[in-house]
């Protein structure tokens, strides 16, 4: 080859290499532009998405669950900030400081190691939930590898067991699972917010993008309950349990004028702040969820049927001699031969013979109709989870004895709160109202429904007042300074083979004060032991002690002084 041709070849080669390099550079530039600007295949959007997947996280912002308050604004359930400690097992499991961590958390190091091994392929595991912020701060400051804290709320109940069964419970994730907490979940629940942030290699937040959803805290719920009354009921019920040796009991106090439930207590109780020792038998709000045969407390409604029939007035005479009566194959007894007595006396003395004669005269259909009208066999309207409506008999064929026993409260069942609601009709001049656990504004009072005439309601009230007067079955229900009315009930408990001879349920439902009837309280004592098992001995004294406090706390004016003299008006003292 010649020099010239060699020179031209090397020149050409030089030019070719330059061109190739330029083409490569151009290709890179085009690719760069494609990645940055266009979105074909693995373009800009794809890369951004992949980048975000590796760095951007969303975190929950916990929301405050609404407060539950009583009618005076005293908090009954409060959500308090706590910290749940969690760990990334992959970072923690081989740490030499495991022993130290286990010690600080007061857990067994072997258990911790086993748990870490179990979750070894996961990146999240709870170490200890709901720890106090101070304690959690100490653990977090010690900087164990992979150990983090998560803010949460925990529910506390300042009144403890006094309000436990009404309020119910929330689960560990803060959802209502029983009682008021469950019934008003939508109102109380806070909706957690979301925020986005960029994390670094260790999962720490380096930059916040801001809040996507603001957390929405739950709303405050004002209940109709009065904590002071709640406490009084609780105390008196406990005392009654001690004194009678009963296994269970319930008390309900209503404001008949509005349908508000002022207090509900039950025994046995539980401590809602100590979850580990939770006893589900004690968690039941028996006054609402358990049905009992109401016994003689139903005689009042039989009286309503008798008065409505037009064939009886309070003074009509009924001959109850010789103190017993045969119905079908059964013989019903009075404690003694009362002889001829008025309809009013029949109820005051709770005479079986007298009531049997009333029932036979008016017929069971009329009585059943009254029971239906007074709200038995239907919900009371509280919306309480697990509320029972009770059962009224629906028989195709009524035997003679069934027609009569209905009149004294056997063969049907009802909850204590249903009985209280039925008696509230008499305090309301014949109007039945739905009940509520929520505090009502004065103008929110539900209208209610007239179920009996004013005259009949007043007549019944007169009789109920006589029941607590000397000669009646419930003199122990008396409240100093006030006249009260009510009706006792003593029911044989049902065992596997029918009614038990030696186990009873004692009941008392009362209205106070008679001059301006407003507060209705039902007391149930389940299985009182010893001789004092009847409604008049086991339940009426509880009613008296609770009602005394109800009237004092609700600021009701005493009607008479100790001596029985009427308190006069303005400034005149007895």
């Amino acid at each position, binding site marked *: 080859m010649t020099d010239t041709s060699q020179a031209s070849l090397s020149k050409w080669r030089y030019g070719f290499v330059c061109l190739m390099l330029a083409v490569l550079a151009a290709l890179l530039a085009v690719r760069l532009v494609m990645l940055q600007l266009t979105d074909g295949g693995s373009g800009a959007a794809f890369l951004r998405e992949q980048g975000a997947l590796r760095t951007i996280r969303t975190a929950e912002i916990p929301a405050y669950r609404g407060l539950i308050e009583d009618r005076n604004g005293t*908090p009954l359930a409060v959500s308090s900030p706590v910290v749940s400690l969690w760990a990334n097992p992959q970072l923690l499991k081989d740490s030499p400081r495991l022993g130290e961590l286990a010690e600080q958390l007061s857990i067994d190091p072997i258990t911790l190691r086993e748990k870490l091994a179990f979750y070894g392929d996961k990146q999240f595991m709870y170490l200890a939930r709901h720890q106090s912020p101070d304690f959690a701060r100490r653990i977090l400051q010690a900087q164990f590898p992979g150990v983090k804290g998560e803010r949460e709320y925990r529910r506390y109940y300042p009144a403890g067991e006094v309000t436990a069964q009404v309020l119910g419970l929330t689960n560990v994730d803060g959802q209502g699972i029983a009682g008021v907490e469950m019934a008003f979940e939508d109102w109380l629940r806070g909706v957690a917010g979301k925020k986005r942030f960029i994390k670094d290699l260790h999962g720490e937040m380096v930059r916040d993008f801001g809040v996507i959803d603001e957390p929405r805290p739950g709303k405050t719920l004002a209940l109709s309950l009065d904590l002071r009354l709640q406490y009084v009921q609780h105390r008196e019920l406990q005392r009654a349990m001690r004194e009678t040796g009963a296994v269970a009991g319930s008390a309900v106090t209503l404001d008949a004028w509005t349908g508000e439930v002022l207090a509900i207590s039950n025994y046995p109780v539980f401590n809602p702040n100590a979850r580990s020792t939770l006893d589900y038998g004690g968690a039941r709000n028996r006054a609402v969820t358990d049905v009992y045969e109401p016994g003689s407390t139903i005689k009042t409604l039989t009286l309503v049927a008798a008065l409505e029939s037009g064939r009886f007035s309070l003074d009509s005479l009924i001959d109850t001699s010789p103190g017993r009566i045969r119905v079908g194959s059964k013989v019903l007894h009075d404690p003694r031969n009362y002889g001829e007595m008025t309809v009013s006396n029949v109820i005051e003395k709770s005479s079986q013979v007298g009531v049997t004669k009333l029932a036979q005269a008016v017929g069971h259909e009329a009585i059943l109709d009254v029971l239906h009208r007074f709200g038995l066999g239907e919900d009371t309207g509280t919306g309480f989870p697990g509320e029972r409506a009770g059962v009224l008999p629906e028989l195709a064929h009524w035997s003679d004895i069934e027609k009569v026993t209905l009149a004294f409260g056997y063969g049907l069942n009802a909850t204590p709160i249903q009985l209280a609601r039925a008696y509230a009709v008499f305090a309301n001049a014949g109007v039945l109202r739905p009940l509520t656990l929520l505090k009502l504004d004065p103008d929110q009072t539900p209208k209610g429904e007239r179920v009996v005439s004013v005259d009949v309601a007043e007549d019944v009230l007169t009789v109920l007042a006589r029941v607590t007067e000397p000669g009646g079955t419930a003199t122990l229900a008396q409240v100093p300074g006030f006249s009260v009315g009510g009706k006792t009930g003593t029911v044989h408990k049902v065992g596997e083979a029918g009614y038990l001879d030696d186990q009873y349920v004692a009941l008392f439902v009362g209205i106070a004060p008679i001059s301006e009837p407003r507060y209705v309280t039902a007391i149930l004592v389940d299985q009182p032991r010893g001789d004092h098992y009847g409604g008049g001995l086991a339940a009426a004294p509880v009613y008296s002690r609770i009602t005394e406090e109800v009237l004092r706390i609700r600021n009701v004016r005493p009607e008479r002084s100790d001596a029985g003299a009427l308190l006069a008006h303005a400034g005149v003292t007895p």
Partner: protein
Amino acid sequence: MRPSPLSPPVSVILLAFALVASGLALVWSTHEVRAGYARLQVLELQRWQLQEEYTRLLLEINTWAAPHRINQIASENLSMLPPELSLSRVIEQ
């Protein structure tokens, strides 16, 4: 075409100044965001701690003022009794 009121070099210089100014503004606003974010974090922490304290105090006051406790102190330490009816006077408002 009407000559532009500013000669090309002047407008270029103005644009260059504007560019520098906007750059500095960006630096400043980024700094502000960082500082603001740090403040936000501190405030959020404070809010959390205040809420912590508030609920703790709320629980505390209700524990101290529980009817049970008041009843006990009144009857045991202060020898108080519920007023008897004979000692009560009704005052008409």
